[in-house]
C-alpha cells in the first residue's frame, strides 16, 4: 500500500487546476502532486546560474535616465527647441511630443575604475560604480503607469499574468519553508499602481504569488492572533480544529488536499513565528544600520526596506521586490528638479549600503540586484520643468549575481528618446533574469487553458551573455 499510495500521488490527476509542466525535470507534475509536497519546495535549476535570489528595487513612476545614468550633451545644446524633424514623433502619455527639449541640469562624471557615467544626483553611487551593469537601451510597451508597471512586473500591459517573482518562485521554488518565497515591501501606505496584481500569480496557483510585508506590528495580513485572544486560547481552538480535520481525514486519505490543508496550518504557524523576526532590525549592529542610512530621516524608510531585503534573502527568500515611491511618486511631469533631487536623496545611500553589505557578507555573488522603474522620461519638457513618460528608451541596472560590473550595455539616440543599440525589451529583461538564475526561459512553462505559457510571452531573448561579460 505505501508503494501504491505514493504512486497514486505521483500519477493522480485529480486536481482541477491547470496541469503544470515542471520547468526543471521535464516531468509532468500533476495538481495533487503539487499539493502533497510544498508546491514551492526547492527545485534544481537547468544550468548553473550564479544568482540564487533577486532584489528588485522598483522606482515607481519612472525615474529620468537622462538625469541619472544616460548623459546627452546634445540635449543641452538643443534645449528650448522642439524635437528635430529627424526624430520620429512618439505618442506620449500627456501629448507633449511637440514641447521644447528640456536640458539636464546635472553634473556628470565618470566613476570607479570602469569610468561609469553617473550624475550628481546619486553621489554615493560612485563607490559602487564598478559593481553596476547599466543597461541604457530598455524598452517597454506601456506609455502609462498602469501598463508600464503591469508589463515590468508581469510582461503584459493588461494584467492577468503571473509576475516575474511568481515565475522565479515557480521555476526555482523556495529554500525557506517558513517565509514566503516572494515578498514585497513598499515605502508608504500608498498603493502601487494596479494594486496587488503587480505581485500576483495570474493564472498560476496562489502559492506562487508575492506576499506584501508591511512595516508595523503585523507584517503579513492576518499574521497576528485576533486582538484580545491569547496564545493559549488560539492553541486550544486550533488543536480542536486539527482534531476535527484528522478525524475527517480517516477513510479519505486519497484526497491529498485534505492533508495539505492540515499542513497549511502548520506552515501558517511557522510563518507567524518567523516572519516578524525576519524583518525585525533591532538585532542589527549600529554600524550596519548606519550603512543603510537608518539614522537619517531622509534615508530611513528606504534604508529599512533595503536592510529587510538583505535579511530576507539571507533567510532564503527568492525574490524581494522593494517599491520606492509607491503610487508613482517618481513621476515628474513638472518640477522634476525638486522631485528627483528628493527621491534620489532617499535612495542613494540605502542602495549603496545594500550593495556593500551584500558584498561584505559574500552574498552579492548570489544575489541579483535590479534597479529601475516602469519607464524613463522624455527629452521633451512638460509644463516647462518636467518630463513625460518614455517607454521607448530608458535605463535599468543590474548588480551582483555574477553580473559583470562597471559596464554599460546598449545605447539610446543622441537625445535619449529611442533605444538604438542592443534594445532590451521588458520580455528580454525577464528572460535574462531567469537565465541569470540558471533557468532557461524557454523551458519554464506553465500550461494554461491548453496553451504553454512562458514568462516572456514567447517573445524574449536572454541577454545574460553580455551582462555576465
Amino acid at each position, binding site marked *: 500500500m505505501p508503494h*501504491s499510495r505514493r504512486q497514486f500521488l505521483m500519477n493522480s490527476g485529480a486536481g482541477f487546476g491547470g496541469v503544470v509542466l515542471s520547468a526543471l525535470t521535464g516531468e509532468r507534475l500533476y495538481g495533487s502532486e503539487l499539493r502533497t509536497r510544498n508546491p514551492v519546495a526547492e527545485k534544481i535549476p537547468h544550468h548553473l546560474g550564479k544568482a540564487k535570489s533577486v532584489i528588485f528595487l522598483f522606482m515607481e513612476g519612472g525615474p529620468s535616465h537622462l538625469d541619472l545614468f544616460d548623459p546627452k550633451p546634445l540635449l543641452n545644446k538643443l534645449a528650448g527647441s522642439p524635437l528635430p524633424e529627424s526624430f520620429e514623433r512618439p505618442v506620449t502619455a500627456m501629448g507633449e511630443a511637440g514641447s521644447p527639449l528640456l536640458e539636464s541640469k546635472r553634473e556628470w562624471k565618470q566613476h570607479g575604475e570602469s569610468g561609469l557615467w553617473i550624475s550628481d544626483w546619486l553621489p554615493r553611487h560612485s563607490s559602487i560604480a564598478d559593481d553596476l551593469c547599466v543597461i541604457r537601451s530598455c524598452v517597454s510597451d506601456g506609455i*502609462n503607469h498602469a501598463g508600464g508597471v503591469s508589463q515590468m512586473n508581469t510582461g503584459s500591459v493588461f494584467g492577468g499574468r503571473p509576475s516575474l517573482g511568481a515565475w522565479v518562485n515557480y521555476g526555482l521554488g523556495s529554500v525557506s519553508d517558513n517565509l514566503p518565497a516572494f515578498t514585497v515591501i513598499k515605502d508608504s501606505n500608498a498603493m502601487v499602481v494596479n494594486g496587488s496584481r503587480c505581485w500576483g500569480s495570474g493564472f498560476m496557483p*496562489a502559492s506562487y504569488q508575492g506576499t506584501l510585508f508591511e512595516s508595523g506590528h503585523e507584517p503579513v495580513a492576518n499574521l497576528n492572533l485576533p486582538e*484580545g485572544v491569547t496564545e493559549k486560547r488560539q492553541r*486550544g481552538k486550533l488543536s480542536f*480544529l486539527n482534531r476535527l480535520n484528522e*478525524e475527517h481525514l480517516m477513510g479519505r486519505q486519497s484526497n491529498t488536499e485534505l492533508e495539505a490543508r492540515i499542513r497549511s496550518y502548520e506552515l*501558517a504557524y511557522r510563518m507567524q513565528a518567523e516572519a516578524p523576526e525576519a524583518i525585525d532590525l533591532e538585532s542589527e549592529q549600529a554600524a550596519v544600520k548606519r550603512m543603510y542610512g537608518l539614522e537619517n530621516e531622509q534615508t530611513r524608510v528606504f534604508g529599512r526596506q533595503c536592510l529587510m531585503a538583505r535579511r530576507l534573502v539571507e533567510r532564503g527568500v527568492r525574490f524581494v521586490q522593494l517599491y520606492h515611491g509607491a503610487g508613482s511618486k517618481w513621476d515628474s511631469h513638472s518640477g522634476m528638479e525638486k522631485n528627483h533631487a528628493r527621491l534620489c536623496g532617499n535612495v542613494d545611500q540605502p542602495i549603496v549600503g545594500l550593495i556593500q553589505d551584500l558584498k561584505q557578507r559574500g552574498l552579492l555573488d548570489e544575489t541579483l540586484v535590479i534597479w529601475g522603474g516602469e519607464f524613463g522620461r522624455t527629452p521633451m519638457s512638460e509644463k516647462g520643468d518636467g518630463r513625460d513618460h518614455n517607454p521607448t528608451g530608458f535605463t535599468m541596472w543590474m548588480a551582483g549575481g555574477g553580473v559583470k560590473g562597471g559596464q554599460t550595455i546598449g545605447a539610446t539616440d543622441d537625445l535619449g528618446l529611442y533605444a538604438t543599440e542592443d534594445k532590451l525589451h521588458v520580455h528580454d529583461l525577464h528572460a535574462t533574469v531567469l537565465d541569470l538564475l540558471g533557468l532557461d526561459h524557454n523551458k519554464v512553462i506553465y500550461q494554461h487553458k491548453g496553451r504553454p505559457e512562458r514568462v516572456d510571452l514567447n517573445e524574449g531573448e536572454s541577454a545574460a551573455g553580455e551582462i555576465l561579460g
Partner: protein
Amino acid sequence: MVGSGREFTEKEKAWWVVQPVRKVVVPKVGHAVDFFVERKLGQAGLMMSEEASAEEFVRRAYFDLHGLPPAVGQVEEFLTAWEKDRDVAVNELIDELLASPRYGERWGQHWLDVVRYADSDGYRADDFRPAAFRYRDYVIRAFNEDKPYDEFVKEQLAGDEIAASDPERVVATGFLRNGVYEWNQRNAEMQREIMINEITDVTAEVFLGMGIGCAQCHDHKFDPILQKDYFALQAFLSSVYWPDDRSFATPEELAGYQKRYRAWEEATAEIRAEMALLVEAGQRAKYNSHVKTFPPEVQEMFAKPREKQSSYERQISFLVERQAIREVETRAKPEQVLKKGSPGRLRYEELETQLSAFDRLKPEPLPKSFMSTDTGSEAAVVQLNSEEVMPGFLTLLGEAAPAIERRETTTGRRSALADWIVASENPFTARVMVNRIWQHHFGRGIAASPNDFGMLGEEPTHPELLDWLAGEFMSGGWKVKRMHKLIMTSAAYRQTARFEPSNAQVQTDPGNKLLWRFPPRRLGAEQIRDAMLALSGELKHLEGGVAQGGSSPVRSIYLRKMRNTPERVLQCFDSPAGFASEPERLNTTTPTQSLLLANSEWPLARARALAGRILGAKGSAEGGDVREAYRMVWGREAKEKEVKAAMEFLSSQSKNTEKDQRAGGASDQKGLVALKSFFKGAESYLARGARGAFSLKPGSKWEYLELPGVQLPEDQFSASAVVRLDEVHDDARVNTLLSQWNGNHQSQGWSIGVTSEKSRYGPRNLIVQLVGLNPGGDLEYEVVASNLRVPLKVPVFVAVVVNARGEGQGRVTFYLKDLSRSDGEMQRVEVGHKVVGGIQRKSGKVFLGARSGGGHLWRGEVARLRLTRKLLHERDLPEFPDPVIDLNVVDLAGLPSGAKWGGHEKFSAASSPEREAFEDFCHALLSSNEFLYLH
C-alpha cells in the same frame, strides 16, 4: 484573397472538434449517461462506486445548484422523501432547486467567470462601472428563466441588432464590453486595436472553445487556424463601440421621458442658455486642451464632421471624446471654472436656484444601460498585409462566406456571426456548452480544457457522451436546466465520493477521469463566503440591482467586483480577477488561507453570529446546541463521540477564554490608577473587567446615541473619551466615536473615529474627518489621520483638539493612552490640515457611536465622554473644564435629557467565557475540512 494557401494535413482535417456532432444511439433501458460512463469503466475493468447517502447527496446538490448549504429542515425533508422513494426524492429535489432564484445566482457566476465580468475598468484608475450590474442581472435571469442557449448567445453578440427595442436583451451586449479599459490611454488607435483583439479572442474562447489569440500574429502553431481566420472572425466584430449615453428603457419609456424632458427644456431654455454661457469658455478650453494631448493623426480624425468620418474614425473619436468628457466632468465643473465669489459664480448660483424651481417638471433620469453596438452600418475595415479581410469562418471548415444584411445603424455582421455560431451544423457550440455544464457538475470537463479544444489539449475522455449530450442539448431546445437534470439523475452523479481507491483504480485511472467515484471537491470562493453568511443567519437575499460594497452580507455575485481591489475572502479562495476569460477555477491550499480563516475578523464574526443564532440569549451551550451546530454546518447528525469531544472542548476552552477576558481587561493596578484619574466610576467599570459600560454594538438596539443640539464654534472644539473598541469593520467604514456629520463630502461637519481593515489609512488609525472651508473659501473634505493605532478590546483614553482657526492651515492634536497598561504612555500627535473654518453643523445634533442617522458604527463601549467649545491643552485634559457634554455612561450620571438611543431591536447577549468557548467551537466548524470540502 489573402492567405497562406496552406494545405491542411490529414491529421488536421481529422481534428475531432471540427467533425459534425455525431448522432449516437443509446439503449432504451437505463440512464443514457450511465451507458457511456459504465462502458468506459468496464473497458478499464473498473466500476462505479455505491450510491451516495441521502445526506451526502442533498448537500452536494444544494452546493452544486445553489452554491449554498441546505438548511436543517431541507435536509430532513429530503431524508423523509428518500426513505419513501429514492428516485422520486432525487427528481423532486432537482426540480425544486432548479426552480429557485438561488440557482441563477450560482450558475450565473460560472458564466461571469468565462466572460471576464467585473464591475470596474481595471488599469490604474479602475473606475467603477455603475451600470455593469445590468449585464450580471441579465445573466442570472437568463439562467433562472432557462433561456434557450442559442438565444442567450445571439443576444450577447447582437442583442442590439435583433432586439433593439427590448432593453433587457440589448444589455446582453455588455458581453462585448466586459473587458478592461484604460481611462487615459492617448494612443487611441492602439487602444482600439487592443479592445477589438480582446473581443475577438474572448468570443472565440467563450462560444467556440477556441484559443485563437496566437493566430493574431501568425498561423496557429498547433491548431489548423490561420492568421487569416483570426482576422476573418475579427471582421464580424470590428465596428463595435461602447456608448455611454444609452438608457435602459423601452422606446415607449424613452419617448415619454423625452417628451417630459423637452417640456422642462423649453421652460428653462433661457436660464440654461445663460448658465451654459458662463461655463462654456472654461469647459471648452479644458475639452480642447485635452483633445490636443492625442497624436496629431488622431486629432485629425476627431476633427472631421461626424458624417464624414469612417466607422473606424468614429471608434477612435469615441475613445478621445470619452476621455475629454471625463476631464471636463472631473476638472472643469462649474465651481472649478468659476472662481468663488466672482460675479460669474454668483450669477451661476442664482441661476441654479432659479432652475431648481422647475424641478417638478423635470423627469427622473432614465437608468443607464451597459451595452455595445456598432459605430455605423459601414464596417470598420480589417486588414491583413494591407488587404481587407472579409467576415468568414475557419478555412479548414471550407464553408461559404456568410450572407450579411446591413442594418440602419449597424453592420449586421454580428448577427451573421451569431447565426453561424448557433446553427445546428456548427460543430463547436453545443459541445462547448454541454462540456461546461458537465465540468461544473463533476469538476472536470469531458474535454479537459473548456476554453480551448485545440489539438494540444487532451482528447475528450468520453467523446460519444459529449456528442450525445450535445445532440440532446440541441434537440431539447438548448435548455440548460434539462441538461442539469439529465446529468444529476445519473448514477454517475449519484455515486458517493466516499470510496477509497485500491490498486485497480490507482494503476488504471489515478485521476478518476472515468468516474469510479464522485470527484471530491473543495468549495469555491463564493460557496465558502455565501455558506458562512447563510449559516450565521446574516445572508441577505437580493433580486439583482446595483453592485454592493465589500462587506454587505449579500451573495458574492452581488458584490462589487473591482479588478484592482478584490474582496479578500473571495480572492484568497481563488476567485479570478476578471482580466481574461477563466473557464476553470484554480483550487489552491495555502497558508494564507489558514491565516485568514484562523485570524481575520470576517470568519470570527460569522462564528459569533452562528453561535448567537444557536444559543440565543443563553450563556453557555448544551449537548443539543452542539448537535444543532453539526447539523447546520456539516449537514449531518453528530456521532455520540463527536458530541462528547465537543463538550470536552467547550469545558476546557472556557477556561482559556476566562483567562483571556482578564488578560484583555485592565487588571493591572497601575492601569487602574491611570483610568481613575480620568473618570468617576472607574472602579465599578474595571471590576467588571472593563466591560459593562454602554455597549454600542451593531445589530443591537443600542447602536448609537443621539444627543440633543450643541452649538459649537465654527472652527474649534475639544473632545475626550474613555472607550473600548472591540473590533473594526472588515471594509473601509469608519468606527465613528463622535460626530456632527452625515458622511456627505459636500455637507459641513466633523467626525472623530477609528479606521477599519480596508481603510487607505490602515486599520485602527485614530482620525478626524472634516468638511469645512479651505483658505480659498471652497468646501473641502479632508481626513486628518493621526497614525496613532487604537488597540482593540482594552480601555483607552482618546482626545482630539480641533483647531481650524489657523492662518492658511488648521491642525488637530490627537491624544491616545492605553489604560490597560501601567506603562501606557500618553501619545500625542499634531497633524496639519487645510480646513480653516465652517465645520459647525446647523442642527447641532451630536451623535455618539455613529454618523448622524446611523451608519459607520462604533463597535465596542463608551464609558465616558466629554465635549467642550474650548481648545484644551494637554494639562487640562483630566480636569476638562467647561464641558457642554459630560457623559458618564457607567453610572448613567450626566445622560442629558432628550438623548435617545438608535439601533436595531435585536437582543445582544452579554459575553461569557462559556459563550466565547462555543463561539470558538463554531469557528472551528466553519474552518473545518468537512465544511470546506464536499467529501
